[in-house]
Structure formats: C-alpha cells, structure tokens
C-alpha cells in the first residue's frame, strides 16, 4: 500500500484533533460542575441542607452500601425495569401479530388503542396497585403498562408497512398467511422490534419509579421518596445518579444485543 498523501494525513489529523477536543469539553463540563457545587456548598453560597454536596453524596454512597443495602435497592429497581420492558416487548409483539393477522379485530380495537395510548399511564398506577396488590408484581405491571401500548402501535405500524410485493412473493411461491408471518413479517421487522425494546427501556423506568414511589419498601424510587421525606437530599440525589447510570448501562446493553442480532441475520 502507498504512503498516504499529505492531504490524507492532514485529514486524519484533523478528525483526531476534533475527537480529543470533544472528549476534553465533555469531561470538563461534568468536572467543573462537581467542583463548583462542592465549592459553593462548602462556602455556604448554596444551602447544603437542601442542595447537598458531591462529598456528602459519595459519603452516603459508601455508608449506604455498607449499612442500608444500596446495592439491593438498585438491583430491585433494575429487575423490575428489565421485567417490565421484556414483558412489554413480548406482549407488544404478540398483540401486534394478532392484530396484523386479523384486520377485522384491528379495526375494532384501533380507537381503544389510540385512547389508551394518549392517557398518561402513570395516572393508572394507583388503580393497578389497588387491583394487583401492594407488591412487586404491581410495580412490574405499572412498568409494563407504560410501555406496552406504544410497543403494540409501533410494531403494528411496522408490520403493516412491510412491502406488499414481498408478501406477494410468498403467495406466488405457494405459501399461506403463516408463511408470510414467519418468512417475511417477523424477520423483516426485527429492527422495528429492537427499536421498541429501546423505547421500552426508558418508559419502563418511568413506570417502575412511579410504582416504587407509590408502594414499595425497596428500590430507588422508594429511596427517593424516603430521602425527601426525611430531608436527606444526599440520598435523593444519590438515587438519581444511580438511576442515570443504570439506564445508560441498560441502553448500552440493548445496543450491544441489537448489533449482535443484526450481524447474525443481516
């Protein structure tokens, strides 16, 4: 291979420079934010009782990990959320298949779906808790409820937009509706289903936290409510930070899964 030209070298150099700049700026924003926060609360510029401080948050993180089962609370929230979005995606895909198969049924339930989709699902959380009971399955049910309607609608739209001639191809080869479903509709819409999974992670977090705030004895939502009631803002903020980390982690994990599936089938 030839030695790259000067112009190519300049180009490579410029993208590298840009990447480093972006990384520096990103990190300096969060660093200066933390330093400024700590500084202000130490000097009494902001009231550390209601704004807490980075130091207190770290201290309470260490303390709670040792004494109040912080990891357990985190794990509970993570499990509820994962259960919520996996159920949401499965039930969403299943319902979308049924509605795709039966267009008569689809036309009947369509307005109901639109209404269910537009009401804020969190408004239904108290009802769900009364019905299901004051326990973990109620929280999973709320998490599921926040994501399942959107999944049904998105996946169904994707199913119905599948190229008509691909479907015709199956019929020309002597196939029936079942063949259309398994040979075309499902494989062609794996990206749409993965997309639903991604959207569901976020939604199911909302459901889980709302549920925990209402009933739970464990979980980060419970810690947030508990912390604010006893004016321990460090506990509240610590929970929020953990939530942010947790949701980023889950999102990344799903991106990884998506890549793996894509490389396998496409």
């Amino acid at each position, binding site marked *: 291979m030839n030695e790259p030209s000067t112009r190519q070298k300049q180009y490579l150099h410029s993208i590298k420079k840009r990447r480093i700049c972006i990384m520096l700026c990103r990190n300096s924003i969060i660093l200066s934010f933390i330093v400024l926060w700590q500084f202000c609360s130490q000097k009494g510029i902001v009231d550390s009782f209601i704004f807490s401080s980075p130091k207190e948050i770290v201290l309470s993180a260490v303390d709670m990990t040792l004494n109040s089962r912080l990891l357990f609370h985190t794990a509970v929230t993570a499990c509820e959320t994962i259960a919520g979005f996996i159920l949401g995606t499965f039930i969403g895909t299943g319902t979308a298949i049924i509605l795709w198969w039966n267009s008569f049924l689809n036309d009947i339930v369509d307005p109901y779906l639109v209404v269910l989709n537009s009401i804020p699902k969190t408004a239904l959380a108290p009802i769900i808790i009364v019905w299901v009971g004051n326990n973990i399955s109620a929280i999973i049910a709320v998490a599921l409820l926040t994501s399942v309607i959107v999944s049904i609608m998105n996946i169904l739209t994707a199913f119905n937009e599948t190229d008509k001639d691909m479907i015709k191809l199956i019929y*020309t080869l002597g196939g029936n509706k079942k063949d259309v479903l398994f040979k075309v509709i499902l494989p062609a819409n794996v990206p749409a289903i993965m997309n639903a999974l991604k959207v569901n992670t976020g939604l199911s977090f909302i459901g889980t936290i709302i549920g925990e705030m209402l009933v739970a004895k464990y979980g980060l939502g419970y810690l947030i409510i508990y912390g604010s009631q006893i004016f321990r803002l460090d506990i509240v903020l610590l929970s929020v930070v953990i939530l942010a980390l947790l949701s980023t982690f889950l999102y990344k994990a799903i991106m990884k899964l998506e890549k793996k599936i894509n490389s396998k089938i496409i």
Partner: protein
Amino acid sequence: MKNAVELKNINFSFNTPCGEHFVLKDISFSVKEGEFISVAGPSGCGKSTLLSIISGLLKSSEGSVKIYDGFKCGYMLQKDYLFEWRNIFSNACLGAEINGNITEETKQYALSLFEKYGLKDYINSRPSALSGGMRQRVALIRTLVPKPDILLLDEPFSALDYQTRLEVCDEISQIIKNEGKTAIMVTHDISEAISVSDRVFVLSKIPAIIKSEHIIDISHSPSRRDDPRFREYFNAIWKELKDNE
C-alpha cells in the same frame, strides 16, 4: 402440440366504495407448450392482474383459466425481493422451503442451476453483495427451483438500468428456452417483448381487451434487435399502443 394455458372469456372487475372497476374484458388466448408469449399494454391496463389470474392468486369474475393437467406455474416479480436476512442459497430455496420439500435432491437441483448460470461462488453471500443483474438471475433460479412448467414474468427487467436490462433480458430468455419452459411475460417495453417472444398480444387501456396479436417471425441468432424487421414490428405495436390514448 398441446396447449399449456387456455384463457376463455376472462372478465375481471373489483369493487371499491366509489364503485365497480372493470379491468379485463373478454380476454381469450391460449399458449402452446414451450412457447414464449408477451402481453404488452399501457401501464395500469391490468397486465399484472392477468398474470395473477393465470397463477390463481386472483379469481376472475367470469371466464375460465385452464392449465394443462399437472402443469405448475412459477411467478417472477418486477423486483427480485431477495431477503437480506437470508443468504443467496436459502433465498433461492424459499419456494421449496414453503412447500415443505426441501430435500437433498432439491438442494442439488438448486446448486446445479447456480453452477449452470455462473453464480456458484455467491451462494453464501448476502443479496446486497450482488449486482442488479445477478440478483435478477437469483430471482429466476428461485422461481425455477420448484420446477414450474409455466413461467409468469411480471415486467421482470424493468427495475434494472438500461444496459443491464438488455443483457439480463437476453440471458434470462435464453435460460428459459434452455429449460424448455412455457413463458408468459407482461411488459410495457415493446422492444423487450419483440426480442424474446414468439407472439405478442397488445392490450388496450382499461377495461382491457386484446387489440391485436403479432407473430414475431425473426430468428433468435445472431440477435433479433439487429434484424430490419425488428423496427417494423416495433412501429406497428407502438402505433397501436399510442392509438389507445
């Protein structure tokens, strides 16, 4: 020679809330075994509908389609529709897979077709790695694997660019002749119809009737396009299509 397909007084109409639409009117013709015929007509004249009726995907409102006993139809669509989530070989075997006879014998037959038509090296590739012309040949192999006796071709080359189209058109019509299949092709491309078929039917705009039948009497070698009579046929058919408007 026996008739592979016989159409008798085919009428086709469909209903929408705005009214009843008449598409085909009193279409009758027959195709002999091994013959290659084309149906040319303006776009939207119901050519594809005619193929769907012959293949049994649609039922005609009136009239009858008679396929010679034991003959099977294979259908080739305008675009290749190779599935990106399958490799080339399993795309070609899709028909056999659907019919539940994906045996060692079928696989060998598919392989022999790939070998014969110069695509053997690509059987494990993804469709996106192939050029438009190659993809169309794979689509033809997919149609041939279930061993149809009659091929129904729905504008099979129109999605290709001009140069590829000429090549693939010659190539694919050659393959169909080699395999000794009967073929019915619908197209709006007059030169394509003349260069591959034994007879060309011209349809009017909808409700479509058969306006005329042209028997193309030019030898296939060297190339029909070089024969002076090609232009004569072309002009005659072109005039008929134009008079429609």
